[in-house]
């Protein structure tokens, strides 16, 4: 049989049909994959209200925001004092590495260090930036209370039990931890003296 095929015409048809098929396939995938993203009611439940005055001095409360745990810590002046003097041991002392660790209200060096609007109330996402475990709260300095689960020069903060990441009392990650970043902050505002709206 002699080959009477017009190959350029046939190749054009292959590409045109294949291209259209790929577009249709891609368009079909949109609703299916789209359906797996958060639904409207999940997005609507995106804020959490909390009364910070219920947290005793030096204590920590874990609240839920968008299904994630959030630390609300009431830092005493002594605990706030523990934030100074170890900047060179921190991976990111001024919280500048990525967007998730900083917020609009971090407009003074003081707030960048404290990582909070009101210095005494630290509100951060409680998921370790390594693989998402909730770190343990170990606020006091040194090994007196914590044994060798913390380094000998422990400045107080959080210790993640999963893979041993350490954070100081402003939830800034300490060098040598597997976690890459400080604990994330989220948008929040005080609607009165003691009530905070997270999200």
């Amino acid at each position, binding site marked *: 049989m002699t080959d009477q095929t017009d190959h350029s015409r046939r190749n054009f048809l*292959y590409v045109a049909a294949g291209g259209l098929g790929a577009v249709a396939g891609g368009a079909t995938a949109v*609703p*299916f994959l789209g359906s797996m993203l958060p639904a409207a009611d999940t997005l609507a439940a995106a804020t959490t209200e909390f009364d910070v005055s219920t947290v005793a001095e030096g204590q920590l409360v874990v609240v839920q925001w968008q299904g994630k745990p959030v630390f609300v810590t009431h830092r005493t002046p002594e605990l706030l004092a523990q934030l100074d003097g170890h900047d060179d041991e921190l991976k990111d002392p001024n919280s500048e590495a990525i967007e998730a660790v900083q917020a609009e209200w971090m407009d003074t060096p003081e707030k960048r260090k404290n990582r909070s609007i009101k210095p005494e109330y630290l509100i951060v996402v409680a998921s370790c930036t390594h693989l998402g475990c909730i770190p343990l709260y170990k606020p006091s300095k040194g090994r007196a209370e914590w044994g060798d689960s913390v380094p000998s020069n422990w400045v107080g903060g959080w210790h993640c039990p999963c893979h041993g990441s350490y954070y100081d009392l402003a939830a800034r990650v300490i060098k040598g931890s597997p976690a890459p970043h400080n604990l994330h902050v989220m948008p929040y505002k005080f609607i009165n003296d003691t009530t905070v709206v997270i999200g």
Partner: protein
Amino acid sequence: MLDAMMKTKLFAWVDRRLGLESIIKSQLTEYPAPKNLNWMWVFGAIAMTVLVLQIVTGIFLAMYYKPSAMLTEGGFSLAFDSVERIMRDVNFGWLIRYTHAVGASMFFLVVYIHMGRGMYYGSYKEPRELIWIIGVVILLIMQGAAFFGYLLPWGQMSFWGATVITNLFGAIPVLGDLIGQLLMGGFSVGDPTLNRFFSLHYLLPLLLVAIVGGHIHALHTVHSNNPDGIDLDQSDPKNIVTFHPYVTMKDAFAVSAFMILYMYIVFFNPQMGGYFIEVDNYMPANSLQTPAHIVPVWYLTPWYTILRSFEDKLLGIVAMGASLAILFVYPFLDRSKVRSARYRPMYRGMLILFFIDVIVLGYCGHSEPTATLKVVGQIATFYYFLFFIALPFLPKVEKTKPLPEGV
């Protein structure tokens, strides 16, 4: 394109380990298809497309659906609320659910046409009896899957439809109560029923895929029938074309055209005037109140009419079972040597009347029962069985037309 792909090194590597080339040749590029297949032969490919779509949409719906009759704070059930959540809150949830719900009706529509094609052109006859019988198994599983799926939204029609059908099994002598309790997991349709129906609704389509594989394997063993119903010399290129690209392209075109119709319904008329999605099912299930007018979805109504046509409860159930069971022996009831209705004038007349009869049965089953419709339904039921019972005697009186030599 396929040729170029089959010349690559990667293909050679895979072929040595999978025998891909011989599969492609025997099933696609060298699989013989009769040259004279008409458009009625595209419905198998369309049915497979719908089956795949039903499974895919079903998997995504199962990510949000909750099979529980527990009451929520709003006073509805978890299941009903989760379906409404899919419709209102889940991204594209309305599209996926309507595709699934309309898909059930489209699946039956396509399969009924596919069966009608087989009946008209004698595709169930020697040597294709097993293809037909496996096909009947597919139909029964589809009906089961549709029935189980219909309970899931936990609306009024879901609840009362399931109640009626499970009570139906309860009328079976001796074992009735046991079968009813096995189905319901209790003494009435309730939370355990919903859970097991969801489980079975997920199981049956997967079973269906395996059985469709058997259906196709049986087909590819004996090869396709054709509109003339004659045996074709498969080695003569005058008679046949290769499956790929000739039939695959034709099927692809038909599937595209079908999808336009299907998606038109999904986007613009998903309830189809209450035929595809019954309006009463938007009322949450209430075990203390039956809806005023309760009927099955259209694709089950012919059998529902057969059930209703008998005064005796047990007799009605037996007749309904028999109307489905008789399909299994259909290839053996028909003794004629000629396959296609084109060359069987009497069979052709009887069959067209049978198609009309099934539509009449469906209409009666979907309408509110009246005295007239009851008689019409009884006559239609009578003809339904008469058609099959007359088949063995037909060759004695039927004068068939001469068959063509080739195509």
